């Protein structure tokens, strides 16, 4: 496995794009954050636990984690018409499953924890950026969590495994073409809460792909930690009392 290959932006195979992470970007929210992988920018806001209407949707045994992911219309080259779409609904659901293992939902029965994720600029890896942002937002909202969740997409161009594909790399067509594998996991456990893939990859290569993702997640956790801590120690915490 050639790790010395150079990608069009100069990165090594196992390098992700420069990360930007900031917490407290939406003062109205109980918790909020922004996370970017290179040019892919996601913002997330958490409201809750709060009352869930209508009552019949409440679960008397636990809180409902309700995730909503979507692209802003101008985040993509071909304008996305505002409104519900199936791709976004699927991503919303897998995002919920990616995040729920670290939250003890039983602590807040009959309530809802709303996680809103929007992509401002899309250059591949949007769902992974969204999960990283949502994770920080949930923490800032004071939701009891056993861990943060980290997410990254591992991919393949022909036979080479790559971490954090750009859109260009997602569109790669030569040889085996492109494979895109979105992975998420609690930062400190070796278990995956999101696994989503399409492309063409030999089964024997899959464990290597997930191991690569795991390794990348360690550094993502560091970035999330730093952003959360900075929101507390910086003078302009960005938090407001409203």
């Amino acid at each position, binding site marked *: 496995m050639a790790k010395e290959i150079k990608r069009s932006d100069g990165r090594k195979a196992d390098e992700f794009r420069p990360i930007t992470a900031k917490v407290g970007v939406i003062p109205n929210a109980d918790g909020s954050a922004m996370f970017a992988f290179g040019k892919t920018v996601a913002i997330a806001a958490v409201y809750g636990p709060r009352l869930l209407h209508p009552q019949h949707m409440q679960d008397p045994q636990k809180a409902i984690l309700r995730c909503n992911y979507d692209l802003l219309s101008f985040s993509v080259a071909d304008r996305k018409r505002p409104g519900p779409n199936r791709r976004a609904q699927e991503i919303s659901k897998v995002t919920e499953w990616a995040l729920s293992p670290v939250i003890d939902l039983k602590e*807040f029965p*009959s309530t809802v924890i709303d996680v809103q994720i929007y992509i401002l600029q899309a250059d591949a890896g949007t769902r992974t950026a969204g999960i990283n942002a949502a994770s920080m937002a949930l923490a800032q909202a004071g939701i009891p*969590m*056993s*861990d943060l969740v980290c997410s990254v997409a591992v991919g393949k161009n022909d036979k080479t495994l790559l971490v954090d594909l750009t859109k260009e790399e997602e569109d790669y067509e030569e040889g085996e073409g492109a494979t895109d594998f979105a992975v998420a996991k609690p930062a*400190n456990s070796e278990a995956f809460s999101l696994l989503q893939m399409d492309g063409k990859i030999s089964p024997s290569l899959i464990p290597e792909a997930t191991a690569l993702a795991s390794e990348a997640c360690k550094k993502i956790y560091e970035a999330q*930690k730093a952003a959360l801590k900075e929101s507390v120690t910086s003078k302009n915490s960005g938090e*407001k009392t*409203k």
Partner: protein
Amino acid sequence: MKNEINEAHEAIEGISTDDSNSVNSESPERRPIVPGEIIVSGEDYLPGDGARREGEDIIANRFGIAEISGRVIKVIQISGAFIPRKGNVVIGRVSDITFSGWLADIDYAQNGFLPIDDSPRFINRNEMDQFLAIGDVVAAKIWSVKSKGIDLTLKGRGLGKLESGFIFRIIPSRVPRVIGREGSMITLVKEKTNCQITVGQNGWIWIRGEKTDDQIRARKAIEHIADQVMVSGLTEKMEEWFENN
């Protein structure tokens, strides 16, 4: 000015008043911590509120300030939902009148309930809105917390329907800071601004002053205090703040 606020908070249990103002030479170690992060390692430590043990390590179960005080390790909440407890004073708004009492929105996933016989004099069912109408703001004490609901009472010093003044919200976890050790911080604010203030544990605060400028100043002071998460010696800093604002 009567220290109504302290009396109203007498029965509060388990509220950690802010002791970063403490002059205790053995002040506990504090630092920001994120979920999943190891706070300390060692078999002697005990996981307190917001922490858990995994093998050798004590690990954070939430985002907050890790506090290492003796053997017990806890994570102080700096954000998050208000958890109602018996004895808490809360500020709420009457949202509905039923045949048996008043429902109040206390900014929590469940409403508070004030039974009809809590009123100080006998109230006829059809006169209920003369005592408390929808939209009225009250300072109430939590009498009991059950899975079915939260019972409130208006019996107590400083409790009841709030007239004039205004209410605003801070993050509930910041309330201990605003109250201060044995009420020292809120007393300072009241003295410097000449305002009546009731602080609800649910993050809602009521202020009434005779002069508009005093009310504005009191709110600014409280919002400023609530914002200072990791600052120590806050009482002195606020004395200074009042000189300059």
